[in-house]
């Protein structure tokens, strides 16, 4: 176990096997190469993507299917290869969430999905090839749309 300082929970212990390598970092944070995923304290579809050695750097993330049932991952096959995955089934897909002053207006970034291969413990931020996905999807609006459609 290693001790790390996190934005949401302060100092905590994590298993080394929880550390995920991001060889290319995340856009805008290219120097940060290691992250850990932290669960919320309570049951929640949201998780934290915490930089391993930058306490203040943590993103809130959510699986796109948790607010958009019909979400389909559409990235270059090379994005999967980069993290040692053979098919989309090998990877976990997350969207980074932006939470404004009014949290009900929170948005998820589907233009730059975060892919994680849990087996290889490697991750990367890919760029969606599908142009219907943008950097700001209002999460509550998307749920509404899905439920209206049925």
């Amino acid at each position, binding site marked *: 176990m290693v001790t790390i300082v996190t934005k949401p929970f302060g100092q905590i212990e994590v298993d080394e096997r929880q550390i995920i390598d991001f060889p290319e970092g995340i*856009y*805008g944070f290219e120097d940060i190469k290691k992250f850990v995923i932290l669960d919320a304290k309570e049951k929640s579809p949201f998780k934290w993507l915490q930089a391993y050695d930058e306490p203040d750097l*943590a993103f809130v993330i959510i699986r796109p299917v948790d607010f958009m049932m019909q979400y389909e991952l559409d990235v270059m096959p090379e994005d999967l290869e980069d993290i040692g995955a053979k098919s989309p089934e090998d990877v976990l897909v997350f969207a980074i*969430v932006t*939470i404004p002053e009014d949290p009900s207006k*929170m948005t998820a970034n589907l233009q730059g999905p975060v892919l994680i291969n849990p087996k290889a413990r490697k991750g990367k931020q890919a*760029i969606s090839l599908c142009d219907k996905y943008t950097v700001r999807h209002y999460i509550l609006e998307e749920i509404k749309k899905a439920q209206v459609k049925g």
Partner: protein
Amino acid sequence: MLVLARKVNESIMIGDDIEIVIIDIKGDQVKLGIKAPKSVAVHRKEIYDEIQKENIAAMQSKVKPDTLKDITDILQTHKEKNIDNSKK
């Protein structure tokens, strides 16, 4: 930066296998054709900039210890409300 003047239907090569063709020029807009191996990712520059900007905005989200609980509650309430509405 290398600067080259090109006319319509002329092209430039980047390495051996990437060709950029000037398809059309209208006013201040240039239409480009890009021939590249499938493994080369081609995206508009704005996409990178937008993702980068959004990541920074996400990182600056004001989060408190209860934030995840708060947004989880908002999500749950919203889901339940919508299910109720669709039943009516």
